């Protein structure tokens, strides 16, 4: 199995585990767990992946970080009772 196939299979399994653990409602927690999974797999495979795969994984990470910032911002605004 090639390294990028291993990445997809392991992240697919991680997604299934997160889905079982979190259930069907808490989207914020689920999204952040997926982001952690992508970050860990990016770090562990950085030596073996080619630049193109690395760039594509980085794009996924940037989307995840934007999602994370949005989640944190909404929480802060919620605590400050602005929204």
């Amino acid at each position, binding site marked *: 199995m090639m*390294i990028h196939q291993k990445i*997809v299979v392991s992240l697919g399994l991680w997604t299934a585990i997160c889905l079982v653990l979190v259930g069907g*409602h808490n989207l914020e927690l689920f999204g952040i767990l997926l982001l952690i999974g992508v970050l860990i797999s990016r770090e562990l495979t950085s*030596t*073996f992946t*080619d630049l193109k*795969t690395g760039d594509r994984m980085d794009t*996924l990470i940037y989307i995840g970080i934007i999602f994370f910032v949005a989640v944190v911002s909404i929480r802060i605004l919620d605590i400050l009772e602005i929204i």
Partner: protein
Amino acid sequence: MKKEDLKSPEYLSKVIGTIFIILSIYLFIFTEQINTAFASLFIGVLTITILHFKTVKISTAESMLESSVMPLNDLLEDLDLDGDGVYVPPNEQLSSSRTYIPAGDFRGIPTLYDEMTVITGGAGRTGISLIPSGAPILDEAKEHMESELYGIGIEGAREGMGILTHGLSLAKSFSLRREDGSIKLRITHNGFNDYCEELRGKSTKLCTRTGCPICSAYITCASEGLDTPLRIVGFEKDEKHIKFTLEEVR
């Protein structure tokens, strides 16, 4: 588009990814399973974006590897060069690694230069100097390394071999260690056993002389990592493993 093309991994990945994305759209619109829909979308996008490599059939890859080494081996057969190969790392006179194949008994490495292929260095120092057949594969692995391979020791050589093994999937695993004053290299097959047997069926001397591109990449990696010429002094092959015994030539 041929039916065979549709079975290739890059097309299959796109089909599977699209199915997951369609499933996620259905779940978003018609159900309240938001996380399941999100998970389906994530797997779909991941499958399409990460599995993007164009692949060739294993038989085609094997033929390409064979075509790069067999004409060379036939030439060495015709020249009746019986000596075992010595992998020489770059030095002051050489800008890239070379495989030196002595004409007869090995009595030391003559001075090798980039532009010289036939070496006539006097008695016992005559032979042929070639670019290792695995050098282009090793060059690809080097692009992924965090530091230069040259002379960083046995750990650095192992890092390079790790990329050849896990990054380029050339083998299932490997082992590189010093034992009894020599270097032991063991490579465990990863689906290229048939290719290996086929090549060995055509020429048993191939492995100890220049090696196939896969073994050549590993030995060149060891030689460059240790920054020492390595001479093949032993070779064994069983069903799963290839074992090289390499001698450091000072």
